[in-house]
């Protein structure tokens, strides 16, 4: 018999609605699975067993009422468990952002996405591991230990949403929330062989998302299949009066049944993304996937994104600059941990000096420098101008194609510690994912093969603003004719 945690997302929903399993049973099964694998994988910072079971029981009561009178519709997500990256706040639950400085911070409010999904009846299993303040591409920068890639425990799961990606692929959660500032959903999804969506900037509320780079941050989803995201995404998007940068373009539902492939799609292949630095197996797998898409009726075109090469330096000026201000509030005064002293400036100095990790301090210093008097025009100011050029590249390309295909990162999952002493090599991990954040456009990644080490390879599709539905439907079409996304690293 199939284990409960092996059920697909749609099977979970069907079994819950039919009453074959209860949300309580389902939640228990996942908690047990987490308990079993957590020591090896360490996907979670906080497991919220008690609250999860309370929410599950509440869902079961709803189901009981609904089964007697089905005229009142229920949310398709009712009773379905969810893992939440630990940079999204959940009321009364500790939220660390992977940092010691928030080691004792219990959030007095829900992030808007969390609110939306709790309203939809979801059950929160726990808070997943992340690089400190989402700064990293391996989840090694977490103050709460490294997450291990379920495909090879000696390797990283990617980052910064590494905990969420590892949890989903190891069946420790059916679906998870992540955040993506420079690739933090797409790259770990790719490293772990799962599907990850980074929505258009502004489409999902950032309220309650602990800010790293405010103009780049997006909350999104990591799932076993595009079809799962099709169910979750409409529930977590929409205008939020608490976030002035959120956009009022609601999405009712994503219909996957109509026709498998959106008609007459044109897919652009930017040559700037297929450079010599890519691991050959990665490029081969991506080219094959493009062929599969072509066979499904997509028209392939070569396109140019000439400013791509500036994305990395532009990102590493803008994101740290915003971060240097965003992280100024962690001073040990009002909440969070404090290193005490008798002198005010000493409290600031010691708290921040001791409780922030090395990468966070590095980026704060980078950002502070980029904004300093005399350097602003040369660095931050110029970066903003080039950011506009990068955005215009995409605007131009989306006049001739609907989607763009690209690698997610140059390599598959690397060994834990491989980039420990080389921050620049770590930054290069995000070279293909940063541009979408700079342009504010949506991107999806999904598995398209394995390398010779049996490590998953992902492809990235990017779309014009608010074209998430096209991305999800195209990924779903691919997954209907392939089975990469069904492969699992750890048997039950």
């Amino acid at each position, binding site marked *: 018999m199939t284990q409960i945690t092996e059920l697909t997302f749609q099977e979970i929903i069907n079994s819950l609605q039919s009453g074959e399993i209860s949300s309580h049973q389902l939640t228990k099964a996942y908690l047990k699975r987490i308990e079993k694998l957590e020591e090896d994988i360490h996907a979670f910072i906080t497991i919220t067993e008690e609250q999860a079971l309370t929410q599950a029981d509440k869902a079961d009561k709803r189901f009981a009422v609904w089964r007697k009178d089905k005229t009142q519709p229920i949310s398709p997500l009712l009773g379905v468990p969810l893992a939440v990256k630990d940079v999204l706040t959940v009321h009364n639950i500790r939220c660390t952002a992977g940092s010691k400085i928030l080691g004792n911070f219990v959030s007095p409010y829900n992030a808007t996405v969390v609110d939306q999904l709790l309203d939809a009846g979801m059950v929160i299993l726990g808070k997943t591991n992340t690089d400190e303040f989402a700064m990293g591409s391996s989840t090694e920068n977490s103050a709460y230990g490294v997450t291990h890639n379920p495909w090879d425990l000696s390797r990283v799961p990617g980052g910064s949403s590494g905990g969420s990606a590892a949890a989903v692929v190891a069946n420790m959660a059916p679906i998870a929330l992540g955040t993506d500032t420079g690739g933090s959903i797409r790259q770990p999804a790719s490293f772990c062989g799962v599907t990850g969506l980074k929505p258009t900037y502004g489409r999902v509320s950032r309220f309650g998302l602990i800010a790293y*780079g405010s103009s780049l941050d997006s909350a999104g989803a990591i799932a076993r299949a595009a079809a799962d995201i099709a169910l979750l995404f409409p529930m977590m998007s929409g205008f939020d009066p608490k976030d002035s940068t959120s956009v009022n373009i609601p999405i009712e539902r994503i219909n996957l049944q109509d026709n498998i492939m959106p008609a007459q799609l044109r897919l652009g292949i930017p040559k700037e993304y297929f450079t010599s630095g890519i691991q050959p197996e990665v490029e081969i797998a991506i080219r094959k996937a493009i062929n599969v898409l072509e066979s499904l009726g997509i028209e392939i075109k070569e396109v140019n994104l000439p400013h791509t090469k500036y994305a990395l330096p532009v990102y590493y000026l803008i994101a740290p600059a*915003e971060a240097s201000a965003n992280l100024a509030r962690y001073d040990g005064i009002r909440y969070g941990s404090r290193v005490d002293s008798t002198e005010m400036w000493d409290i600031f100095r010691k708290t921040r000096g001791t409780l922030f990790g090395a990468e966070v301090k590095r980026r704060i210093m980078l950002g502070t420098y980029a904004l300093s008097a005399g350097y602003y025009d040369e660095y931050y100011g110029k970066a903003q101008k080039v950011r506009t050029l990068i955005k215009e590249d995409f605007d131009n390309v989306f006049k001739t194609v609907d989607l763009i295909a690209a690698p997610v990162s140059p390599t598959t999952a690397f060994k834990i510690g491989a980039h420990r002493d080389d921050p620049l090599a770590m930054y290069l991990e995000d070279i293909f994912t940063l541009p979408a954040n700079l342009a504010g456009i949506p991107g999806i990644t999904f598995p398209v093969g394995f390398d010779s080490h049996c490590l998953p390879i992902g492809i990235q599709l990017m779309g014009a603003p608010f074209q998430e539905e096209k991305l999800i439907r195209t990924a779903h079409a691919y997954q209907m004719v392939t089975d990469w996304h069904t492969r699992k690293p750890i048997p039950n």
Partner: protein
Amino acid sequence: MKPNFETIIGLEVHAELETRSKMFCGCPVVDSTEAKPNIAVCPVCAGMPGSLPVVNQQAVEYALKVALALECQINNTSIFARKNYFYPDLPKGYQISQYESPLAHHGHLKIRTQSGEKNIRIRRVHMEEDTGKLTHIPPNNGKPGYSLIDLNRAGVPLLEIVSEPDIRSAEEARSYAVTLRTLLRYLGVNSGDMQKGVIRIEPNVSIRPIGSSEFYTRTEIKNLNSFRALERAVAYEIQRQQNLFRQGKTIVQQTMGWDESHQKTFPQRTKEEEEDYRYFPEPDIPPLVIEDEWIERIRAALPELPAAKYKRFIKTYRLSSDDADLLISAQSISNYFESTVSTCPDIPPRTVANWITGELFGLINQRNITFEDIKILPRELSALLSLLHHGEINTNTAKAVLTEMFETGNDPKTIVSKSGLNQISNIAQIAKIIHDVIAANPKELETYLNGKETVSQWFFGQVMRGTGGKANPKIVKAELNRQLLELKRKQ
């Protein structure tokens, strides 16, 4: 001695906008000098992780009112920016302000000076948020000192109004500040209470030899909590700089504090110690777009502004400049004056003005209350002035009645009739009283008839005393003279 220096002053004014809620969150704006600490605080104004600012439309509207009243140009798109610095009263570690594209610029404010009206240019008007308040508890009995933080004020909308360096004396600086405060009060955006810190004035001062057109090193003065302190601090600073200049010493660019007890400025920090605020556009708030239509709607709804009202009061009511100035100092006062005048058309407006600025203000100052607290309605004041005007009471009685009205809120007619204060104006009644007084004092009458006419003054006093001061003095004087002359003729 001929002054060989010219003074150059610019003023930076921070005014809290008294909106219902704070600049970027839903917390109420409370009086932070009275409210219990930290009762108006939420995750946004406490700078909690993941919280985001949302611009308060009412604050923008208030700011636009001020900018339009200052005849500024409004930027159709203005940008919020982060001003970065660490301090325990600044929850986010940055203040949301405006830097490169402020709300408004290029305005002006006309002030009155000894040599007439003067135009002071306004450089910019921008919106920002206030900080919290720190209270330092010093060490006591071996217990170490500590600091308390109150975030009630954190995030309260603040308007910064920066003038061009067009001000030339301490008096002008005061006049500018007073004029600006009156304007803010008219617009209903700020109570103008300097003691409570809802309006904060920071002058920057420099001097230059007369004839020079360049700007010399300037100093900035902070912590001024009254107009008097502003004027004195600026005057002190001018003198200090002149002394340094004459002695050939350098004037250091620095921020000065004002020591109220010693009446002198003192250095707080020098330019070198000033921070680099690393301003950059606030990514959490999209550019603020203000459509022309909105601007015009606000412009159309502006009340009559103090400068216009001042001119109208002098022209229409023939008031003295001083009275007009006092009456326009707040809308509540000018409205009170105008309602009183309109309910007693036969009394000269000047008389009404005198009673308000003299007697009423005197009572208000004595009791240390505000004009808004007075119990006397305009029509009651006008009833009182009517009684006086028609001779039913005399001036002294009127003053006494006003005091009672002020205390009890009763109407003047009730007070007058209850205490029998009505003036005796009936000639027959007065004639009888005079007749009786003369008859009762034959010796004094004889002295009068013998040519000592000043005795008539004595009779006058006797009559007035006999009526308890209620007799109409004009009628008494006339009737007394008539009866005395009559007796003289009969002699």
